[in-house]
């Protein structure tokens, strides 16, 4: 798990910004809540979310020991939601992390290693961006079989080109700064300059993008699992829960509400966190956000 949420900024201005930044506060609170629930699920669950218990099927919300009720097979909703949070993190953060690494490498190469590398990588990214991700994911699920790994692979295929574009343009603007010229004059090599000067200066952009794509990854994973081509039991996904609710008990049941609410709260939290961090880490973009 990537746990980086802070980065150095200029101290005196930072305090005032943080006070004014409601997005950041709400985003941090919701995201921490989400992470804590996922961590707790490893140590404690109300009951086993995968073992059917027909005696307890379709208990209404508010039942003792099953506070949000049970599903059509008597499995506890809270336990399923908690394990679902893990899946969201595994797949969402997994996809975002791998894309961030690949996108950073590709973006830096495009920015620093000449016109041919830039054209090849940028046009390649453009092409990948014009392929509808959902359709590709269906095909991937068909050839690789569904599951968490396939889903992470699909997310990586969607997100890497976007990361590449963002990192490339951020790196290019850093590379035009005077201190890069002086580092070159000093005789520093390209790799050294990228590692020592460019990456620290685009770290803010990287963190913001990671947060936003983490959120997008959770949404996409939920969509794929809803379609039945994402993760499969014994893993549990919020999208899968919605699919099961619709298949077995109909959409008007509260079973079709909880997983949706969970997705909205978590994705909203991460997006607010990303926007808030952008205001703090990337003052140039503040006006636009």
């Amino acid at each position, binding site marked *: 798990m990537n746990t980086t949420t802070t980065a150095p900024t200029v101290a005196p201005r930072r305090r005032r910004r943080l006070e004014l930044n409601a997005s950041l506060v709400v985003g941090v609170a919701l995201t921490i809540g989400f992470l804590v629930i996922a961590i707790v699920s490893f140590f404690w669950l109300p009951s086993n979310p995968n073992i059917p218990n027909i005696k307890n099927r379709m208990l209404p919300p508010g039942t003792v020991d099953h506070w949000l009720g049970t599903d059509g097979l008597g499995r506890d909703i809270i336990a399923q939601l908690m394990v679902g949070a893990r899946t969201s993190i595994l797949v969402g953060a997994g996809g975002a992390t791998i894309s961030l690494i690949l996108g950073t490498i590709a973006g830096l190469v495009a920015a620093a290693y000449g016109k041919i590398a830039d054209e090849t990588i940028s046009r390649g990214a453009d092409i990948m961006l014009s392929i*509808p991700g959902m359709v590709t994911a269906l095909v991937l699920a*068909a050839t690789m079989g569904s599951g968490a790994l396939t889903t992470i692979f699909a997310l990586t295929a969607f997100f890497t080109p976007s990361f590449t574009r963002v990192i490339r343009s951020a790196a290019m603007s850093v590379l035009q700064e005077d201190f890069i010229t002086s580092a070159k004059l000093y005789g520093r090599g390209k790799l050294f300059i990228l590692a020592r000067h460019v990456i620290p200066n685009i770290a803010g952009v990287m963190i913001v993008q990671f947060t936003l794509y983490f*959120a997008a990854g959770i*949404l996409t994973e939920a969509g794929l699992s*809803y*379609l039945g081509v994402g993760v499969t039991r014994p893993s549990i996904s919020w999208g899968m829960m919605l699919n099961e609710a619709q298949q077995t008990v109909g959409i008007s049941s509260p079973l079709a509400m909880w997983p949706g609410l969970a997705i*909205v709260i978590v994705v909203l939290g991460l997006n607010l966190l990303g926007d808030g961090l952008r205001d703090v880490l990337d003052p140039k973009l503040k*006006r636009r956000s």
Partner: protein
Amino acid sequence: MAIYALRKLAFFLGAVFVASLAIFILIRAAGGNVAAIVLGKDATAEAINALAHAYGLDQPLPVQYFNWITNMLQGDLGQSFRTKESVADLVTARLSVSVPLALSGLLLGLIIAIPVGTYAARNVGKPSGAVLALISQIGIAVPVFWAGILLSVLFGVKLGWLPTGGWVDWRESPIGAIRSLVLPVLSLGLIMAAVLIRYVRSAVLDVMNQDYVRTARAVGMTRTQALLSVGLRNAALPIVTIVGLQIAELIGGTVIIEMVFSLPGLSRMILANVAAREVIVVQSTVMLIIIFVIFVNFVVDLLYGVLDPRVRNAA
């Protein structure tokens, strides 16, 4: 302009080529013995070989790729192994569902997003602007299929105004077809709107700070007049681009919404054929969708060049 258009055309063709290669490799490389899977466990070796031979599946992959491409260029998209229906027929039958759904969804999204986004930009820093920004932020977090479920609970189950799913063919009853599309379009349109509002808002905010808006204000126009006369036209450029980029997103949304409302559109056909290992149907249909998306982006790029001389001259 001609050079700009040629560059874009070259990119379009290159993109289609790379995408076709990627799709072919993805579907076929991991495919195993397609003919054996299609015919099932009880098939004899002769039957498997006959099917493989009939569809050219026994040829080396590069030859199959070449045949697939040349056939497509001649308008032959191949046919289903089992039903022998041509892919072209299979696809066109589904378009009467998918196309109205996707287009109306996009249109509804724009109809909501342009005025609301402009209003949000005009009221930036005021409570009304902040509330709109928050609503759009929440809308972005709502998965499109959950929006569909909520709308169909409200209007289908609780109020009983509209069907919660299923499809009535246009030829049978146009009204019935429209009724089955209302909730899907609404779900898709609202979610598209949430995303688009942010782009419209930031595009309008950008032009509001431009020199030409200040000039217009200086010659005596009100803020609103300035925005309508010079602002919106300039804000239209980034919005056109975003619509191009959102096409891929729109198709993803359409795929899911068709499942939520059990509409017999393209995505259900693709899913069914994926499950049945109808590789030729899947690869041709997916390729058609991708060509369409790349083509839309090509047209958007051309439009952009026509509308803004700076773009075509920079390129």
